[in-house]
């Protein structure tokens, strides 16, 4: 499920064996579950993205577990080593088990 609130950036071309950066940005309130509502009576329920998965040609290469303290609109950058041309997919899983994902194409050129 692609969503306009999820963004990914990878370099268009990388050399084989080179480590490249996958930068992702999700637009999400990341409600921490410790804040009171404005009338100070009820605690706003926790609603965060609790897991981020990175796939390279369908194979899982990265996993992040997030907890209450991750900032609003979480930015995440991680590195993957280039093996072959293909697709980078990043999946976010929320507290309510809603999966959102984005894909990006990467071309591997011979060094």
């Amino acid at each position: 499920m692609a969503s306009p609130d999820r963004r990914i950036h990878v370099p268009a071309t990388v050399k084989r064996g080179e480590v490249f950066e996958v930068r992702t940005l999700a637009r999400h309130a990341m409600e921490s579950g410790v804040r009171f509502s404005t009338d100070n009576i009820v605690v706003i329920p926790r609603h965060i993205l609790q897991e981020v998965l990175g796939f390279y040609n369908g194979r899982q290469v990265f996993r992040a577990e997030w907890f209450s303290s991750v900032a609003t609109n979480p930015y995440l950058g991680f590195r993957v080593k280039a093996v072959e041309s293909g697709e980078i997919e990043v999946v976010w899983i929320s507290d309510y088990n809603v999966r959102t994902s984005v894909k990006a194409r990467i071309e591997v050129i011979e060094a």
Partner: protein
Amino acid sequence: MKPSAERKAVSRRGVLASAGVLMASWALPAWAEGIRNRVSMFRRTFPVQPDVADAEHLVGIVLRGREPVPDLIDLKLPLLAENGDSIPLTFDVSCGFEGSDYPKTVHVFVLGNPFPEVARYHYGPWNGSALTEMRFRMRQTSDVVLVAEMADGRVAMARQNVEVLLGACGG
């Protein structure tokens, strides 16, 4: 199959079962409360006061008595943050990413937050580098602790104090 009858049976049993689970969670001993409140994966919706000693205990649970290797984690954090809502963190683990010389898991802790565990990152030899960037919230001035569990059983730790002028209300 009669949907109405089934629904009735499920709801009755479901209510009883969930009541039982609730009772069981109330009956936890006092020492388990802190661990349950701060570590567990379930959705935590209750205000907790930050407890630095408890957070140190959490770091100790991850270390499991192993002696951390110094100078393995390269930590990039601001020394002073005007706003605790979004503090950029960049870290790298200096290792070869060959054989078992790579970090399996990197834990990020902020000791002064109500839930001190911020994130866990899992890597494999296919990453080539553990350089990772993220942003987190901080409630108050406190230490940020990173613990990297290497695949060969070593543990690396890095610690830096961050001064927060205006803390995030969440955390």
